[in-house]
């Protein structure tokens, strides 16, 4: 029997651990088991490891090591930024601004604060291609605004947001309103999908807070960090022994932190070459998709992550498509309601101004380091007959002109 075909094309969900990262982590899963808070040599070596990891990350971000706080992943870092800022500055105001296409790790804490702690949540609409307009952000800021959270690049449709321009618009507003650098409002960006593909120098980006996680950059799961520009206060989510400057208590996950730093180093070193390679594959895929009748590209055609292709395939439903592709060996994802726990279709595709039926038929393919041109060719060979079969089964015949 031949080997079963398995082509993983869901790197926006998670990426495999890079063997070089695993190698770097191994000592800390073995004899270097120390607690960084211990005074003795075993502990000091562990402390040394997380210090070095922090330094390495700070170098990539162009910030100080003390400005990096390790967390248990991207979700926790996003939560810490939003809940932490709101609770530390709530006497100064209550408005929180985010785009409508943020990750749930940003949307849910904002909604929670609005429901339970008096926040005034304001969600900025995006255009048909998923872009946030910096002018709309500036217009949404009022005297009581504490935080603006806009993702660097979207996880579903891959659209890259104009972070620099948004940062500038916020700085301009602060200047005009006599706010100092360390006064609210602050600017947070979730860079989980952007890391490894886009520049991360926080100074150039104009971000006050930035989230990055490990598993999207071929590092371990369950680890991430929040960059917090010094001078900004946060209320911690987790209380205890006072690790991470009291912002994230709990014994540090040393192996994961070492892996995260290694993963980010590798991603930075290989970024340019990998971006160029993936962009070619991505565009090949997008051209292939567009050859299938009644499809539309979701997200921006050029301002998009090099590894993301997202299409809505009309008249069929995403889960069915994903399961047929899965059976054929291709691991991809959909914004269809059927795959979500709450049976609501993707809020991101909906926010583009597209009707529910377009969200139900969306297909996301996200490429990675292991993806080859052959993989793309194989997917493009397998997909059209699957679409044809599901369309034969489907009673829906939508008119394309309403979905362009």
């Amino acid at each position, binding site marked *: 029997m031949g080997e079963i075909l398995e082509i993983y094309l869901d790197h926006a969900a998670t990426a495999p651990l890079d063997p070089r990262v695993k190698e770097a982590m191994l000592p800390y899963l073995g004899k270097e088991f120390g607690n960084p808070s211990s005074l003795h040599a075993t502990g000091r070596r562990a402390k040394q490891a997380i210090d070095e990891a922090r330094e390495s990350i700070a170098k990539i971000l162009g910030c100080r090591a003390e400005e990096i706080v390790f967390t248990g992943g991207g979700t926790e870092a996003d939560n810490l930024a939003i809940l932490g800022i709101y609770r530390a500055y709530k006497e100064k105001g209550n408005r929180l601004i985010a785009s409508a296409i943020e990750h749930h790790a940003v949307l849910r804490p904002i909604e929670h604060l609005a429901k339970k702690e008096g926040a005034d949540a304001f969600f900025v609409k995006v255009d048909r291609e998923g872009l946030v307009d910096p002018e709309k952000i500036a217009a949404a800021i009022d005297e009581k605004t504490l935080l603006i959270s806009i993702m660097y690049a979207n996880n579903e449709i891959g659209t890259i947001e104009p972070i620099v321009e948004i940062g500038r618009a916020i700085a301009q507003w602060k200047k005009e309103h006599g706010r100092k650098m360390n006064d609210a409002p602050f600017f947070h960006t979730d860079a989980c999908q952007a890391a490894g593909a886009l520049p991360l120098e926080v100074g150039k980006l104009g971000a006050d807070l930035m989230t990055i996680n490990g598993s999207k950059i071929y590092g371990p799961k369950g680890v991430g960090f929040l960059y917090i520009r010094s001078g900004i206060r946060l209320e911690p989510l987790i209380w205890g022994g006072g690790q991470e400057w009291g912002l994230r208590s709990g014994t540090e996950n040393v192996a994961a932190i070492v892996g995260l730093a290694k993963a980010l180093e590798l991603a930075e070193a290989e970024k340019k070459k990998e971006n160029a390679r993936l962009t070619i594959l991505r565009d090949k895929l997008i051209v292939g998709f567009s050859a299938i009748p009644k499809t539309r590209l979701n997200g921006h055609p050029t301002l998009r992550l090099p590894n993301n292709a997202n299409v809505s395939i009309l008249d069929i439903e995403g889960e069915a498509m994903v*399961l047929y592709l899965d059976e054929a060996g291709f691991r991809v994802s959909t914004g269809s309601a059927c795959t979500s726990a709450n049976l609501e279709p993707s809020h991101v595709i909906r926010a583009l101004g597209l009707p529910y039926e377009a969200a139900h038929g969306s297909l996301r393919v996200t490429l990675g380091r292991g993806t080859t041109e052959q993989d793309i060719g194989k997917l493009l060979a397998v997909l059209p007959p699957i679409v044809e079969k599901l369309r034969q*089964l489907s009673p829906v015949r939508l008119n394309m002109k309403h979905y362009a």
Partner: protein
Amino acid sequence: MPNTPDVVSKDKKEKWLYSDIVKEHFFDPKNFLLDDDGYEADGMGMVGSPACGDMMTVWIKVDPKTERITDMKWRTFGCGSAIASTSMHSVMVTEDGGRTLTEALAIRPQHIIARLGGLPDRKIHCSVLSDKALRVAVNDYFRRTGQIFRIMPEGSRLVDKVLKITDHDIEEAVLEGADTLEKVQARTKVGTGDPTCLPEVEQLIRFYKEKYFD
């Protein structure tokens, strides 16, 4: 909604979202309509919409003497369980020489789910659609054959007159796991505009819970 574990495949090797029977009907669906033009149906029924994520159409052929449904064809826009349950439903309706209209209409969602070897909890609402589509198709058959007196009235009656919520909406909510008034309200907002309907809503919840889950 309570989260029960997803269905496990028979060989227990792989925990799949669906049972082996569901997979069989999903990847190799039975009785779906390929050729629109060449098919003469005695009745047709449609439910759902692509916007809500599930839509299906069924066509039936009926032997007027025996009232047996000799053929049932369908098309479904929806997830794996929607496709598989419509496929299974069509098999159940047409097996053993075809069920009579009465027998066919007695096939309830839970019978289809049982024949499929179970469905994940959150998927159950999908399969409810094909029995509704069949009911519409049988009504269409009655209409076409002039048996107007046999047409079954659609069981949708306004419960909340302000929000235009019908008993059918309550039924849907219960099928999706809302087993208390609070949970049904969380889904439908029923009674927020017209609280006088709440006693009736509670009665309906009890009725549908017994119908589908007891």
